[in-house]
C-alpha cells in the first residue's frame, strides 16, 4: 500500500503547488497557467469522446465556441445574472448542442464522424461570422468580468487575475473530477466497451447509439464550460473561438499528451501552451515544430508524453530509490 500512499502524496503536492502558484508567478505566467487549466478541461472533454469511445470529433471547437459565445452573451445582455448560474447555463447549452449534433453523427463510422462533426463546426462558425447583429462577426464582443457573488458571503472581485485563476482552478478541478467519476459509472464502463467493439457491446445488450450520444453530449458540457471560462478570462469573444484552429488544438493537445490515459490531455494542454509560448518568442513558424512532434507521436504510436510517467516506470523508479 506504500505505492497508493505515494500517489496520494503526489496528488496532494500537485494540489498544493497549484494553490500556491499565483503567489510565486508573475502576472504573465498566471495568465499562462489559467489558460493551461482551461485548455486542460477542453482537451479532457475531447478525450472522453476520442480516447474512451473511439470516435474522433474533428469539430470539438464548435462546442468550445458555443460556450464562449453563450457566456459572453449572458454577460452582455443579462449583467445581473449570478456567475455560477451562468456557468450552469453555459454547460447546459453545450450539452444540448452536442446532443443535437450527436443525433446525426454518432451512428457513423470513424471518418464520417470526423467529417460531419467538422461540418457542423463550419456551420456554427458561419453563423457566428454572418449573424453580425448578435455576434459582431470577426470583430467580436468585449465584456468586463462580473464579480462572483457568494450569496451572503460577500463578493469576490474578478478584477484581479489571481482570483480568476482560483475560480478557474475550482471549476476545472470539479469538471475533471466529474469526468473521472463519470467513467466509473456503469454508463462510463459501457462507453469503453463500445470502443472495444461496438457490435459485441450491442450483442451484450448495450444500446450503442445512446451510449455514444451520452458520452458526446457529456463531453459537450465540459467543452462548453471551458469555452465559457476562456471568454470570461479573456473578456472577449470572436470567431477565432469557434474556428477550425480551436478544434485542432484539442486534437494536438490530446494526442501529444497521450489519449490512452485519463490525465494525458491535461499534460498535453500544459505542454502545448508552454511550448507555444516558448517557441513563438523565437520563431513565428511554431506550427511546424508542433506538427512534427504530433506526426512523430502518431507515427511511432508513442502514446504521448504521459507515457513518460506511466506506472511501471514510476514503480521501477521508486523501487530503485528504496534500494
Amino acid at each position: 500500500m506504500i505505492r497508493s500512499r505515494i500517489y496520494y502524496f503526489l496528488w496532494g503536492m500537485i494540489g498544493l503547488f497549484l494553490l500556491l502558484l499565483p503567489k510565486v508567478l508573475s502576472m504573465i505566467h498566471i495568465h499562462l497557467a489559467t489558460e493551461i487549466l482551461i485548455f486542460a478541461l477542453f482537451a479532457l472533454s475531447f478525450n472522453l469522446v476520442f480516447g474512451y469511445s473511439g470516435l474522433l470529433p474533428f469539430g470539438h471547437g464548435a462546442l468550445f465556441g458555443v460556450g464562449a459565445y453563450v457566456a459572453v452573451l449572458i454577460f452582455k445582455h443579462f449583467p445581473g445574472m449570478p456567475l455560477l448560474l451562468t456557468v450552469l447555463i453555459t454547460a447546459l447549452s453545450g450539452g444540448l448542442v452536442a446532443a443535437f449534433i450527436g443525433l446525426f453523427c454518432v451512428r457513423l463510422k470513424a471518418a464520417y464522424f470526423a467529417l460531419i462533426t467538422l461540418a457542423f463546426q463550419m456551420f456554427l462558425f458561419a453563423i457566428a461570422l454572418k449573424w453580425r447583429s448578435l455576434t459582431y462577426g470577426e470583430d467580436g464582443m468585449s465584456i468586463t468580468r462580473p464579480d462572483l457573488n457568494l450569496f451572503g458571503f460577500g463578493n469576490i472581485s474578478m478584477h484581479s487575475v489571481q482570483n480568476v485563476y482560483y475560480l478557474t482552478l475550482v471549476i476545472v478541478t470539479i469538471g475533471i473530477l466529474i469526468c473521472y467519476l463519470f467513467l466509473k459509472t456503469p454508463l462510463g464502463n459501457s462507453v469503453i466497451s463500445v470502443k472495444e467493439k461496438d457490435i459485441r457491446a450491442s450483442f451484450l445488450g448495450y444500446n450503442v447509439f445512446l451510449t455514444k450520444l451520452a458520452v458526446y453530449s457529456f463531453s459537450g458540457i465540459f467543452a462548453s464550460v471551458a469555452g465559457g471560462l476562456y471568454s470570461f478570462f479573456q473578456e472577449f469573444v470572436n470567431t477565432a473561438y469557434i474556428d477550425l484552429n480551436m478544434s485542432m488544438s484539442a486534437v494536438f493537445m490530446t494526442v501529444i499528451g497521450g489519449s490512452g490515459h485519463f490525465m494525458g490531455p491535461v499534460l498535453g494542454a500544459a505542454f502545448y501552451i508552454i511550448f507555444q509560448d516558448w517557441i513563438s518568442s523565437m520563431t513565428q513558424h511554431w506550427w511546424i515544430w508542433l506538427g512534427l512532434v504530433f506526426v512523430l507521436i502518431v507515427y511511432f504510436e508513442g502514446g504521448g508524453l504521459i507515457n513518460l510517467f506511466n506506472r511501471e516506470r514510476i514503480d521501477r523508479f521508486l523501487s530503485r530509490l528504496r534500494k
Partner: protein
Amino acid sequence: MHLPIEIYLVQMMHGLVYGMLIFLVASGLTLVLGMLDILNITHAAFYMLGAYFAYSITLQLGNFWLGLLIAPIFVGIIGVLIERIFLRKTYKGGHLSQLLITFGLLFIFGELVRIIWGTVPLDVSVPKLLEGSIPFGGMTYPIYRLFILCFSVLIFIGITLVLSFSRIGIIIRAAVSDAEMVNALGINIPLVFLGVFGGGAFLAGVAGVISVPFISVHSNTGLEVLLDCFVVIVIGGFGSLLGAFIASLMIGLLQSFGILWIPKLAIVFPFLLMVLVLILRPTGLFGVKE
C-alpha cells in the same frame, strides 16, 4: 427578385467551373478513400502545392504551360513519397491514426508553404493564349474559365475511360470493391495503391495549377478546398467517381446561386445539403451499402 436571364446563365457557368475544379481535387480523394479506406486529409495540401509550384515555375520560366506540365508531376512524386513513408505503415493501425497523421502532415505543409512563399496571396496572370472574353448569351465570359471547364470535363472523361476499359482501370475498380481478394488473385495491390495515391495527388496538383490564374493562392487555400471536397465525397458516396462528379457540380451550382439569392447564407448551403443527404441516404448518393 427579377434578374435578367443572362445573369443566371453566367452564374451557372461560374458554378460549373468551380464544381469541376472541386471535382479534380475530390476525384483522387474519393478513389483513395474507396480503395485504401484512408481519408487522406493531406490531399488538400497537394492542391495547394500544385498552385504554389505553378506560381514559381511560371515566375522562373515565364511560361504557364510548362507549369501545368511540371508542377503536377512534382506533386505526384511528393504524394508517392508520403504514401511510402507515412501511410504504408498505418494501414493496419486503423482509421484514427491515419486521420491523425494525414491531418498533421497537412499542417506541416501549410507551415512549410508559409516559410517558403510567405503569407501574401500570390497571383499568376492568365496565359496569353486564353486572355480576354468571348460573347456568351448576350454577355461576355472569360475564355480562361471556359478553358477550365473544358479541360476538367476532358479529364473526367479520360479517367472514366481508363477506369472502365483499360486493364489497370479494371484492377483499380476491383480493388475498390475488395482489395484483399484482388491481392489474392496475384496482383500487386500495394503497387496499385501507390499508383492511385500518386495519381490522385497528380490530379490535385493539376487542379491547383489551373486554379491559380483565377484564384490567388495563399496558405489557407488548401483548407478551404478541403471542406468542399469533404462535402462532395460525403454527398457523392465514398469511393464513387460518378458520385463525386455529380456532387461537385451540385456544390458548385449551389454556391454560385446561393451567393446570388441569399449571400449571407451561401457558405452554409453545402453543409445543409450534406446533412440532408446524410439523413436521407447515409451512404451518399452513389455509395454502396455495406
